[in-house]
């Protein structure tokens, strides 16, 4: 080992180092990591619900009101449509025609939350509350947490809209904001399947 000439590191004759160029924009990675945490959070809620549900011979427990499956199916379609409109807004952003589809996505998201609130009022009247059973508690916990996320997502869309109007919305910021809304929308059918059906 002592006699061998020191190994020549080919990097000693180095080219100029590459400039710092991110592969994925920082905003987008940050949002993806955040969404990943959110997925785990909802995973926790849904699996807790599934385990509790499996302890009961029938679900919903006897004497508890049924959930409005059909009305919510329509509402689900409205929410999915809002994701489609936002996708359109993303495609048209470069051409500067994102305004109308973005407004449409916000309107559809707003309709979804209002319809959910209307549904809750009816269910509370029928006697489904957080204290009435674990069924009610999980329903309001999971659907309510999702509703808070929809409201937060609407806040994101409003902020995007304001920056778009001011002409300061970068492509990466728009992508990050849209990722959050897509997450909120795609999550809902899963929750609908686990909680309502």
């Amino acid at each position, binding site marked *: 080992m002592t006699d061998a000439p*020191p*190994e020549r*590191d080919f*990097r*000693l004759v*180095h080219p100029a*180092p*590459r*400039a*710092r*160029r*991110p*592969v*994925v*924009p*920082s*905003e987008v*990675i*940050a949002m993806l*990591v*955040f969404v*990943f*945490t*959110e*997925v*785990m*959070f*909802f*995973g*926790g*809620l849904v*699996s*807790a619900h599934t*385990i*509790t549900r499996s*302890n*009961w011979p029938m679900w919903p*427990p006897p004497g508890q009101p049924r959930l409005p499956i059909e009305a919510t199916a329509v509402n689900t379609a409205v929410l999915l449509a809002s994701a489609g409109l936002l996708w359109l807004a993303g495609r048209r952003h470069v051409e500067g025609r994102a305004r109308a589809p973005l407004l449409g996505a916000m309107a559809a998201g707003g309709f979804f939350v209002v319809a959910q609130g209307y549904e809750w009022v009816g269910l509370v009247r029928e006697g489904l509350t*957080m*204290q009435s*059973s*674990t069924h009610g*508690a*999980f329903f309001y*916990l999971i659907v309510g*947490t999702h509703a808070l996320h929809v409201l937060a997502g609407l806040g994101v869309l409003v902020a995007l809209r304001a920056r778009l109007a001011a002409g300061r919305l*970068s492509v*990466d*910021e728009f992508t990050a904001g849209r990722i959050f809304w897509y997450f909120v929308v795609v999550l809902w059918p899963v929750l609908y399947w686990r909680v309502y059906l």
Partner: protein
Amino acid sequence: MSHPEHAHADHGHAAHGDHHHEMSFSEKYLFPTDHKYIAKQYMLTGMIMAVAAGFFAYAFRMQLAFPGMSVPFFGVVSPTEYNSLVTQHGSIMVFWVAMPVLIAAFGNFLIPLMIGADDMVFPRLNRLSYQLFLLSAILVVVGWFVPGGGFGGAWTSYPPLSAKAEYSLTPAGSSIWLAAVAVEFAAFLLGGINFVVTAMNARAPGMKWHDVPIVVWFICIASILFMASVGPLIAGAIMLLFDQQLGTHFFDPVAGGDPILWQHLFWFFGHPEVYVVLLPAIGICAEIIPVFARKKLFGYRAILYTGIATGVLSFFVWAHHQFVAGIDPRMANVFTITTVLISIPIAEMVFLYIATLYGGSIKFSVPMLWALSFIFCFLIGGVTGIFLGASGADIYLHDTYFVVAHFHYTFYPIAIIGTFAGVTHWFPKLFGRYMDEKLGQIHFWGTVLSFNLIFIPLFFTGLAGDHRRIYNYNNFAELGTPDLQWLRILATVALVIMLIFQVLFVYNFINSIFKGKLAPTNPWKATTLEWTTPSAQPGHGNWTPETMPSVYRGPYEYSAPGRDDDFHPQNVP
């Protein structure tokens, strides 16, 4: 929201002349966005919380050694206070000492410096992260003083004890504690996102994935583990908070809930959490050992991949905490196998560190002593864990002091030894001065020897049947014997000695900040990028445009052949 250019526009940013501008007091100390000051804030907050947690340990250990005695500086410990002290000691050491110091402080300080960036990608998000953390620390302290006292349902806070005020006797304390934990998780979520994005997008030109120092890798892996595991616990914490405050029955078996569910949600987070704090600590050792052995880290890629493997495996071991909670024995077998499997990557890492030492010219400086004692102590923790991971042995040992001694042999090296190793190693970079070597050596031996004296006796009391959650062993004829009581007194005396030795560290730390010998830029002749910045770093930003480093090689080129000095820094062509 930071602009996308911010991360990699350090050159342009600096060229505009605000690179080393003088910062006002509030900009520097109250609301800093500079990663170095945020790191110091995290470190200081963690150290203050550690003093409180150490005092709590002193109070309840005194009660166990001399039951019913009026403890000096505390008074007589009542049973409720005892529960509260144990709970607060555990939760503070894990959530408000180990997490902020190891991940947040070292992550904030080291990641930008070691990858050659001027700051985090999202500096204001970073500031928000510390402010949320401070809020959570204030909340948990407030919880000690509300009517009924601080939460006393153990740091694992199992329902129904934690869910009902008539059991826990702390109606307000338990909810405040839960809220504090939740706010803290939000803080580390923001911090973790920042770490991962910064390490991905802000590396110096030329720094490839395998040129990134191990500690940066491990802090990022730990952040990912944290973010992947914390969701289910936040879900559980909300459910528990609703059980406490809204009268729901998520964990109440009488009304159709499931108390074991909480244990699964908690430990799905709780076990990866062990590796969340372990990885930064073991990463710190990976930085120190090559420097003071003057030898290349043996098996960089093997260490990196075993770190990733540990992280993945850590998600499949949690149910070893429920072996006696009535889980299916076939399931217990599966979790026994995964638990024992995880010792393989950790053992491999230890072997690779020993291989790094082999044939090196070892210098027993204070950081090196801490790093080596980390390996020694953690090894004892790992080996005793095998008995607890095996479901058969665990049925006997569950909830005894054997468990307490075991996890202190893992957490103490992580939270205390790892922190001391990191602080003493990077002190010249943190404050521009050396720490006193002699005082450091005395503090090291005093701390490590007394630590072993605390917990070795507890292995034996645990084997003799000491249950963890007992206020006064004299109430149990078979446990209140003089032989066992003598061991408990030994552990308590050793604890008091260890705490007294910490005064030496605090003195050395504060004295060295102001009066220590001035340190040069690269006092340890190390290769990584943080040693290329001026030691007392001025202002916001780490490098001037001219000195901004480019990277040509891996981080551990010691005893490099064909060079005059024995090391080859990453930024030297």
